[in-house]
């Protein structure tokens, strides 16, 4: 799947990362997803339900680079398993330190 399905919510937009499969890896895919959401406002909710693993490169490409972007929406990550959440936290911390 290379297109992004983004839903409108009361506070902005949301997308389900599991639409790309339970195991997320690769900067190519990460860049596609980031490009789709970087200009949305005011908030993007990433629902990680069903995501079993996320590689550090993917996490950096989506969340790390969003975190260091000057103009970006507020990002909410929900339903992430502990390992996925730690990958995202690490990616954001690396890009904003």
């Amino acid at each position, binding site marked *: 799947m290379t297109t992004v399905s983004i839903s409108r919510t009361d506070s902005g937009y949301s997308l389900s990362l599991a639409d790309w*499969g*339970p*195991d*997320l*890896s*690769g*900067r*190519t*895919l990460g860049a596609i997803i980031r490009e789709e959401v970087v200009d949305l406002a005011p908030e993007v909710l990433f629902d*990680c339900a069903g995501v*079993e*693993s*996320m*590689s*550090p*490169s993917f996490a*950096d490409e989506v969340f*790390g680079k969003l*975190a*260091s972007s000057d103009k970006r929406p*507020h*990002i*909410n*990550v*929900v*339903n*992430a*398993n*502990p*390992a*996925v*959440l*730690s*990958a*995202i*936290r*690490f990616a*954001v*911390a*690396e*890009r*904003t330190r």
Partner: protein
Amino acid sequence: MASHGTDAEIRLEIPANANFSGLTRVLAQLKPLLVSPENDEPRLVVVDMRDVERCSATGITILAAALEHLFVCKRLRPGSQILVPQRSDVTQFLWRMNFFAELGVNMPSRQERARPHGFRPVTHVANDAESPAVTRGLVEAVEESYEIDPITSGALKSCVNEVVENVFYHARSPVDALVSVQTEDRKVELAIVDTGRGIRTSLLDVPEYRAKAPDDCSAIRLALKKNVTTTGDDRRGIGLWVVYELVRRNEGQMLVLSNDGGVEITGEQLVDIEECFWPGTLVAVEFDMAQPIDIREVYASGEFDDDSFDF
């Protein structure tokens, strides 16, 4: 294990135990052929496996990658051959591991067997988009032998995906990437192999790394460090470091070979391997399944008791 033959012939005698260390020594004999310019005359290669009694998945992956590289790069003269093991169970194991199929030899129907338990055949990964599905299959093989939690499963997947991604970003490998997994006792062995340009050649694209990587061993050690990258983005260069940190914390083993150098990692210890050769990069990782494999420790994010985050 000696090499003998005419100028036009290279004969490889594969040892009884075709494991990682035995094979890399034998394959060093192929170096003149593997590194020679493509317009050199192809050579007759005879791979004598008749004495082989035991093969590891990593060993088969290495041998398949080397021979496939020679084939793809047109380095083999017609008439080159593989002398199959005398032990039929070993030959059947090679069939089941896709060794012959990877070299373009079709499997006779009589050799078909049920999918092996606890390991997966040598698998070709043609691009990084294929990596998640292949990796999932490898980890399912591990799950056939061990009950593993989602944290361990995710860590194993991240390991393979990161190394495979490196192949497609940096290696320029003629055979793409070959991967395999094998479980034995309480160990899981993963191998990711390419026949690309190697770590040092890639690092030399960056002027600041030239002095830090005067040889292949030092280049491998450098590549294991965090944020070492040839992309120009100093926040990248995480993948191989994450794999190394997982192995170190698990007190497992990791072996990285790249061209004329190698580094063997056992827990906290890194030892250079000088007398080896691999035409590209080979990463073999062994985890101790009795020890935790927790990528959260590597990330050290600290708070694991919630499932949401915002920034």
